[in-house]
């Protein structure tokens, strides 16, 4: 049975960016407001899941030619290496530092290694959630 998915597809195209933007907002906002790598990552996964719902695996693969397992592994690597940064400077594992950098356009921006760690978390969450969805959905 072929159904007309035009409504959902159009809506998705529109909503997707809102969700993605929101997820990135939540990710960066995490250190001070509710949010962070986990929630941001999960939101992104939810957005991509919506994309999958509206379209199909092959289309999405064309849009996002990423091996999610590699994404996961990179996330793990980033998180671990960030942690080891502390070791390199003679501190304990996972010791974070933070400072304020003045960037054009953005103004005063807080830059913390914790954010890098959170980025790792974000990658892992996106990568693994989507691997899971892709695997279950793609299994015939």
């Amino acid at each position, binding site marked *: 049975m072929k159904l007309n998915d035009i409504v959902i597809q159009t809506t998705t195209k529109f909503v997707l960016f809102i969700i993605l933007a929101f997820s990135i907002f939540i990710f960066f906002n995490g250190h001070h407001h509710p949010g962070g790598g986990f929630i941001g990552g999960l939101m992104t996964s939810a957005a991509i899941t*919506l994309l999958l719902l509206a379209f199909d695996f092959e289309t999405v693969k064309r849009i996002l030619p990423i091996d999610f397992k590699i994404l996961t592994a990179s996330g793990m690597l980033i998180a671990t290496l960030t942690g080891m940064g502390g070791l390199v400077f003679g501190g304990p594992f996972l010791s974070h530092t933070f400072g304020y950098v003045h960037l054009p356009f953005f103004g005063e921006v807080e830059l913390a290694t914790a954010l890098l760690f959170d980025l790792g978390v974000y990658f892992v969450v996106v990568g693994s959630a989507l691997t899971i969805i892709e695997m279950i959905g793609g299994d015939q």
Partner: protein
Amino acid sequence: MFAIILNISAVLIVLSSLIGLYRVVKGPSNPDRVITLDMIGVNLISLVAVITLILNTTAFLEVILLLSILSFIGTVSFSKFITKGVVIERKRD
């Protein structure tokens, strides 16, 4: 006064969720249940909003936004499952 009204509205919203729950359990058909779930989602959004007011905090604004998106995704996936039996297709033809 305002607090009382807020509390009453919270109670009413939860009550309507409770009624929704009855529909979810009872059915009779799956589409009924899905629609009810959507309804409960809307209820929840309003409830979180009310609670935000009761607690007088901004901490839960993200939750409201999120809930609306998520209940949309949830409804879409349930609908697809009911109509097509498969949630995500491998390849559309």
